[in-house]
């Protein structure tokens, strides 16, 4: 049977593709039962499978598809009308076919399952129509015998087709029942086939694997388009793509060495152009549209929502988005889980939705699109959302984070805990999801291909899960920087500007709000990360004064990476590059060991053979908690300072100077400050004369610095302005928010002399920015606060 091997393999590939199409069509038909084209398409698919299995002797499959085809024929001709029950029945049939095909795939046998029951049900559905009442008499001879007989006796198709279907004696009546356009044919085939009931493939040989469509519905078949394509072994394509990648690297090396040699220039330019085009073409072979994945989801959504008892409408956008075919396989499971999750946990029961004023049917939307060198897939639902507070409490309860740490984390960072193993917050563990093994596997799978996943949610409104996947073997423009002696690459699309660190007055300075350094750039405050220290490449006590800050923007968050230097591209001047320092690098995947680190999105091989890691800016932003740091600085601006006092007072303590509501200057030590934040009125509450501000679900005492010296004006200031600026300070006993009118500046104390004042709450007065400023004693403030809590 060796020759058959190849044919069986091809049969399996096509049949499985056809089944996927069947799923889609059936689900679509359920939503729009009047579409005749779909019905015809479904019919053809089943008919094709039926015809082919005759060729190979798959009798169970043949019998099953025969019954299905019978039913479908009636539907197609209008004798039966399509309803949910029929849809489920036919989907069951599809699943059964899948099971048999799976068995054939692994054992080349049909397997031991018996589908007589399913065949009964199909027949019962058929018998439900008045016009087929006669056929019922012939029924008994149809099904059980068909499945019992091991040979190929595909019971007759009472449907018109070009292929002469094999035999069975007793179905003259069945044929009459369904009005076939070509009445003549079936009879002809019956008589010939009747003679050879026990004959195997020979008798059925005339059944071609591909049946031509019934002539009355002249829809263009997919095969018409398929004729301009061929099947190629994927590993061959991979080899080609790899070789092209090598070629690109070699070309780059050639360009740099050939620069000095004019005789080579024209040939090198030609090679450059051709290689570029070859690379694009090679990439195209690897690309497939994500539709092949998305098309499976309508069925899954239907099944899951039925099981959960919910109503869900699925909308799909961007199914034609393309990405590397290997990646499509890898995101299949994670996406499926996310969809199940959204239906199971996100979208509420219809009654709950109506009570909440939402439409009965939940909206589940699946979007895919390209965005700055990556493919982004969003799974969004309009369900109940996720409570950040609940996640935070759970994370603390599980010891994943301390209360103090959790307090400083942004909502996005908190929601990431959902991806920790075993974290499910579902009240009841359902059979579909919620066992707590899902989300961590989702993240691991996505990260193993160099992607990222994050969640954002609004309680009561819904949740969006965003999966971002890099496009592989891309050539991207990047900056090559050095930090701590290592070379690193920063993808150019994110880079906004470069700022040199200077240690003289008049330049841009980095202020050390402890633990969260900020660059003051003109009148913006930008959080920065010292790459050399953060990556563990170098340690230092006082902040370096030379270097460059690379200002990047990721997803509306702007931050800076402090590096030693940015490489100039003296070897890589290309005609299209306008900026000095831009390198074109081939992105190579970094593999499963490195991807989970979350801070590298790939690596590249430089002309000198060295490997340079490409920084994943989103990952770095998340790991350094940039989103919350950026938020806190929004709306707070510093006065531009024309003149600095001598920076030589580096050893002097640094302070944040603010103006209080009574227009007094006060200073707080930088080392005590956690952050600066602006609060809308809604976040401010009070009991009696004690004020509180709500921050990430916690209440912090809100103090007016003037209050410590006897006056308070929080109430007035609340009435005067829409929001309140506060300096959040930490003390050994907890955090406190100091309400100020505005933030003035950050400075070093110009005088070492601090007069200790006798006023409680004041440590003294010092010279800051040339002006006398009162230094606040925060711990006193807390002690005096009647109901201060350590939060």
């Amino acid at each position, binding site marked *: 049977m060796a020759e058959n091997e190849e044919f069986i393999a091809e049969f399996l590939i096509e049949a499985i593709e056809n089944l996927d199409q069947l799923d889609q069509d059936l689900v679509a038909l359920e939503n729009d039962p009047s579409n005749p084209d779909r019905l015809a398409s479904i019919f053809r698919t089943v008919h094709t499978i039926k015809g082919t299995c005759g060729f190979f002797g798959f009798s169970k499959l043949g019998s099953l598809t025969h019954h299905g085809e019978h039913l479908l024929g009636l539907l197609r001709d209008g004798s039966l009308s399509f309803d949910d029950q029929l849809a489920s029945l036919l989907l069951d049939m599809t699943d059964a076919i899948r099971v048999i095909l799976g068995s054939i795939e692994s054992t080349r046998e049909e397997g031991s399952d018996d589908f007589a029951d399913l065949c009964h049900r199909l027949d019962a559905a058929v018998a439900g129509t008045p016009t087929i009442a006669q056929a019922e008499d012939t029924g008994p001879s149809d099904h059980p015998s068909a499945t019992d007989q091991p040979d190929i006796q595909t019971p007759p198709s009472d449907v018109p087709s070009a292929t002469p279907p094999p035999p069975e004696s007793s179905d003259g009546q069945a044929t009459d029942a369904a009005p076939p356009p070509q009445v003549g044919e079936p009879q002809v085939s019956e008589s010939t086939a009747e003679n050879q009931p026990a004959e195997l493939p020979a008798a059925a040989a005339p059944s071609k694997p591909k049946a031509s469509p019934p002539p009355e519905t002249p829809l263009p078949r997919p095969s018409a388009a398929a004729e301009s394509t061929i099947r190629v072994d994927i590993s061959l394509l991979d080899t080609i793509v790899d070789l092209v990648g090598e070629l690109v690297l070699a070309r780059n090396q050639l360009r740099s060495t050939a620069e000095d040699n004019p005789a080579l220039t024209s040939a090198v330019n030609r090679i450059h152009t051709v290689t570029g085009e070859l690379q694009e073409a090679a990439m195209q072979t690897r690309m497939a549209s994500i539709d092949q994945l998305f098309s499976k989801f309508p069925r899954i959504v239907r099944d899951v929502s039925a099981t959960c008892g919910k109503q869900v409408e699925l909308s799909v956008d961007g199914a034609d988005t393309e990405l590397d075919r290997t990646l499509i396989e890898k995101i299949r499971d994670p996406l499926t889980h996310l969809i199940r999750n959204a239906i199971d946990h996100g979208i509420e029961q219809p009654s709950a939705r109506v009570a909440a004023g939402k439409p009965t049917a939940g909206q589940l939307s699946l979007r895919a699109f390209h965005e700055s060198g990556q493919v982004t897939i969003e799974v969004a639902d309009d369900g109940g959302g996720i409570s950040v507070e609940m996640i935070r409490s759970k994370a603390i309860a599980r010891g994943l984070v301390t209360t103090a740490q959790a307090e400083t984390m942004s909502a996005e960072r908190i929601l990431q805990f959902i991806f920790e193993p075993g974290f499910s917050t579902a009240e009841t563990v359902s059979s579909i999801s919620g066992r707590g093994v899902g989300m961590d596997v989702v993240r691991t799978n996505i990260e193993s291909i160099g992607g990222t996943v994050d969640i954002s949610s609004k309680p009561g409104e819904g949740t969006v899960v965003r999966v971002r996947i890099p496009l592989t073997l891309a050539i991207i423009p990047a900056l090559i920087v050095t930090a701590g002696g*290592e070379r690193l690459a920063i993808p150019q699309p994110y880079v906004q500007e470069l700022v040199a660190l200077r240690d003289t007055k008049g330049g841009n300075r980095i202020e050390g709000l402890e633990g969260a350094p900020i660059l003051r750039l003109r009148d913006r405050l930008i959080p920065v990360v010292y790459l050399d220290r953060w990556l563990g490449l170098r340690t230092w006590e006082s902040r370096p004064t030379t270097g460059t800050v690379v200002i990047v923007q990721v997803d509306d968050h702007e931050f800076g990476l402090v590096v030693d230097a940015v490489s100039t591209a003296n070897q890589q001047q290309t005609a299209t590059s306008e900026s000095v320092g831009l390198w074109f690098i081939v992105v190579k995947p970094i593999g499963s060991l490195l991807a989970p680190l979350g801070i590298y999105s790939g690596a590249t091989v430089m002309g000198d*053979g060295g*490997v340079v*890691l490409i920084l994943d800016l989103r990952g770095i932003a998340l790991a350094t908690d940039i989103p919350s740091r950026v938020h806190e600085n929004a709306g707070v601006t510093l006065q531009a300072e024309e003149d600095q006092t001598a920076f030589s007072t580096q050893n002097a303590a640094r302070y944040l100077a603010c103006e209080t509501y009574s227009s007094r200057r006060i200073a707080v030590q930088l080392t005590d400050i956690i952050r600066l934040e602006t609060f809308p009125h809604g976040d401010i509450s009070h009991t009696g004369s004690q004020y509180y501000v709500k921050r990430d679900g916690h209440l912090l005492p809100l103090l007016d610095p003037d209050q410590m010296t006897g006056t308070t004006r929080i109430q007035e200031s609340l009435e005067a302005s829409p929001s309140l600026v506060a300096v959040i300070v930490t003390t050994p006993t907890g955090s406190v928010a100091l309400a100020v009118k505005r933030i003035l500046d950050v400075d070093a104390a110009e005088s070492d002399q601090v007069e200790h004042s006798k006023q409680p709450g004041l440590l003294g007065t010092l010279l800051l920015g040339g002006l006398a400023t009162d230094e606040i004693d925060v711990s006193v403030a807390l002690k005096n606060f009647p109901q201060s809590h350590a939060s």
Partner: protein
Amino acid sequence: MNPNASQPLSPLQPKADNRWFTFLVADRCFAVDVSLVSEVLRNAALSRVPLAAPALAGLLNLRGRIVPVIDLRIRFGFSTYDRDKPRTNVVVEYCNEWYSLLVDDLLDVVTLEPHEMGTPSSERGNPQIDAVSGVLAAADSLIHFLDLERVFQPLLTSKTRGLAVG
């Protein structure tokens, strides 16, 4: 430098399962299925990976393919090697990806009968070698058979969450 491994006692099976690639790490002999080994490099230059697990010694550029290198001394908890001494990279394929094992030195490819292998005994010392699936006493040494999945598994799940800010 042959360990005195057992002599081949019976004809080779059609599959390569009985042929083992052996090497030295911290004076101990380890073996992996030879069919998993794709090549061997001596003194290859490695690029560092900041913030990666200590066992990840770096990245190797293998004709354009980027291969992570796992220092088996660190992975198994042995003392670190003298920096000046050359080391060898054994490039293996696992789950469709390539990895390199950084070892001290190469030994022979030997043929061994599976039924001769015993289970690793923990009192023999080195309980930290969690990746060993069997041992075989040879003439003057103990051969530890490596299960690559167990070698890599702990490394695949390490992350760098909770990094210092700034």
